């Protein structure tokens, strides 16, 4: 067997193993607080479509309790994922548990497909070998928070996945203009923008790069390219987004406006470095603190190294640019690719910081820049042997492999609560500085423990986490309301409950909030500690 065939075989086996693992464990994850909201979002658009096209359908009576699209706070949410899922739920008459399981499986499946694209992004556009491309994919999927989110985060991970695919085709389009690449670039840019409108920066960046392409590499003039590309992009966006159908321009600008701000009715504060802040007024370092705290330290190191190498190389070229008619922003096609990828992560972070965009629950809204950072890390590793010698490159790769193994061990050990990962430098400072389990994934583990001790009990809640989401994930032998009674956060229920639960995640400073207080006659009964961090705790009389 020659080397190339063996290498391709290893790659195929790797992806098959990843698919098998994901397919086996996707049902271990709890239904997170956002998922029921997105499920309803799908139904809202489905109801809207039926009202528009089949107003006398029987289905409309079934959807009677669903809010109207134009009156709902979710009207500007994309429906690319939610609408097909709600249609499947209706079509196949799925029960609610199966609907959420399907949502988890499809979220993982799309992420899995995007990792294949990421592999080819590295292999084709960065021109690395299979080993370095696989290393890039491994960095992505072994990052504990990304791995965990890939099963239930139908917004940020989906956006990350579609941005990877859209970037792949946008680069293809810049290097080889043909109808297929044009269509696929438009399609995936529109799909990504449907999930998060922020995705619009990708077609804009692609167009700017096209303008700067040398004339001999252009197949269309700038105006024609603009018309073809943006017509295709907006047409697909329009078709896939029912909210745009009746009033495209006004609603598109409403989507843009609402995407940068924070829904006024949410009215909560987030814990950041010991203080409870309004998510609209975050300090500039919010993203950096979260990113540096929750990304494995070797990955952070090689990412910075890759960015430094790129900047050094590029600025050497940039400083010699002459601002005349023949202005060139890059020397070679490879340099163009690296610059494109650099800007793909730099532009969103730059605008999020300068425009003071709303962020909360860590850096999940910016997960989509992570593949670009990994790309630059692999770029750094790839050119290391040019700058130093091969031993230096091998040393770095060994460090990365050790970090990947350590991550896989963490993922295995903490399953399915990998979302509480903090690297070893930040871990000692997390308590009372950053929220830990904002998705509430550890809730299930703790309630399962209580069920193993007692068959029937009531549990009150002293934190901002919806315990009743557990009803979608209880084992068949237990039932919500028969075995467990969730009493919520009301103070009057505290003294009558068997247990009081808290995962230390609050929407207000808990210091003065009675609803978050644990009565003095309740003592600690069980603590879920993961990797030295208290994730949640149960108190009993």
């Amino acid at each position, binding site marked *: 067997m020659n080397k190339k065939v063996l290498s391709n075989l290893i790659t195929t086996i790797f992806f098959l193993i990843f698919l098998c693992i994901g397919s086996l464990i996707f049902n271990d994850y709890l239904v997170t607080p956002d998922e029921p909201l997105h499920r309803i979002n799908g139904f809202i658009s489905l109801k809207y479509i039926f009202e528009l096209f089949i107003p006398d359908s029987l289905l409309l009576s079934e959807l009677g309790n669903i809010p109207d699209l134009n009156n709902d706070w979710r009207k500007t949410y994309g429906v690319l994922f939610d609408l097909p899922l709600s249609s499947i739920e209706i079509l196949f008459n799925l029960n609610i548990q199966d609907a959420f399981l399907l949502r988890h499986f499809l979220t993982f499946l799309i992420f899995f497909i995007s990792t294949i694209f990421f592999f080819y992004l590295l292999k084709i556009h960065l021109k690395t070998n299979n080993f370095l491309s696989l290393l890039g994919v491994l960095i992505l999927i072994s990052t504990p928070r990304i791995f965990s989110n890939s099963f239930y985060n139908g917004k940020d991970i989906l956006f990350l996945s579609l941005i990877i695919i859209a970037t792949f085709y946008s680069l293809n389009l810049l290097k080889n203009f043909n109808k297929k690449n044009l269509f696929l670039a438009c399609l995936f840019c529109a799909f990504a923008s449907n999930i998060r409108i922020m995705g619009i920066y990708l077609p804009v960046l692609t167009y700017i790069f096209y303008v700067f392409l040398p004339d001999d590499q252009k197949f269309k003039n700038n105006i024609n390219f603009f018309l073809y590309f943006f017509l295709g992009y907006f047409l697909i966006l329009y078709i896939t987004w029912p909210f745009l159908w009746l009033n495209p321009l006004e609603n598109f600008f409403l989507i843009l406006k609402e995407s940068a701000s924070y829904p006024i009715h949410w009215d909560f*504060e987030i814990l950041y470095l010991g203080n409870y*802040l309004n998510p609209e007024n975050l300090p500039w370092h919010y993203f950096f603190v979260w990113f540096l705290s929750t990304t494995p330290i070797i990955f952070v190191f090689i990412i910075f190294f890759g960015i430094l190498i790129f900047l050094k190389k590029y600025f050497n070229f940039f400083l010699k640019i002459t601002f005349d008619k023949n*202005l060139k*922003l890059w020397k070679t096609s490879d340099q163009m690719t690296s610059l494109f990828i650099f800007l793909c992560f730099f532009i969103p972070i730059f605008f999020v910081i300068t*425009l*003071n965009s709303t962020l909360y629950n860590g850096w999940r809204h910016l997960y989509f820049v992570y593949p670009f950072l990994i790309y630059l890390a692999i770029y750094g590793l790839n050119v290391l042997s040019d700058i130093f010698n091969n031993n230096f490159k091998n040393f770095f790769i060994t460090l990365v492999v050790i970090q990947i193994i350590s991550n896989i061990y963490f993922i295995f050990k903490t399953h399915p609560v990998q979302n509480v990962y903090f690297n070893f430098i930040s871990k000692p400072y997390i308590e009372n500085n950053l929220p830990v389990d904002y998705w509430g994934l550890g809730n299930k583990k703790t309630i399962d423990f209580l069920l193993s001790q007692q068959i029937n009990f009531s549990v009150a809640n002293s934190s901002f986490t919806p315990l009743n989401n557990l009803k979608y994930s209880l084992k068949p032998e237990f039932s919500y309301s028969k075995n467990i009674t969730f009493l919520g956060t009301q103070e009057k229920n505290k003294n009558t409950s068997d247990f009081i639960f808290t995962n230390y995640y609050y929407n207000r400073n*808990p210091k003065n909030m009675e609803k978050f207080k644990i009565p003095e006659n309740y003592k600690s009964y069980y603590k879920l500690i993961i990797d030295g961090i208290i994730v949640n705790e149960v108190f009993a009389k």
Partner: protein
Amino acid sequence: MKSFILKSAIIFFFCLLLFRFTIVSLVNEYENKINSHISSSHIEQIKKEFFQSIKENNEKDNILDPEDAELLSIFIKKILNELNIR
């Protein structure tokens, strides 16, 4: 055209940075201060302190100084008289 786009982008980049680290930072700081004063958690604290203070005063024999008591008594009587309420 290319030169214009690039120069505009560079100027725009620095203007936004300047705006973020001067005006926006200042506005954020003051908004956070205001928010922390009007937040429900802070109001809860004020309410708690207020009732605690009433509780402590209820336990005392005299709540007011004799001078303050006289002053308030005259004031309340005058107000009641003017409002013609028995």
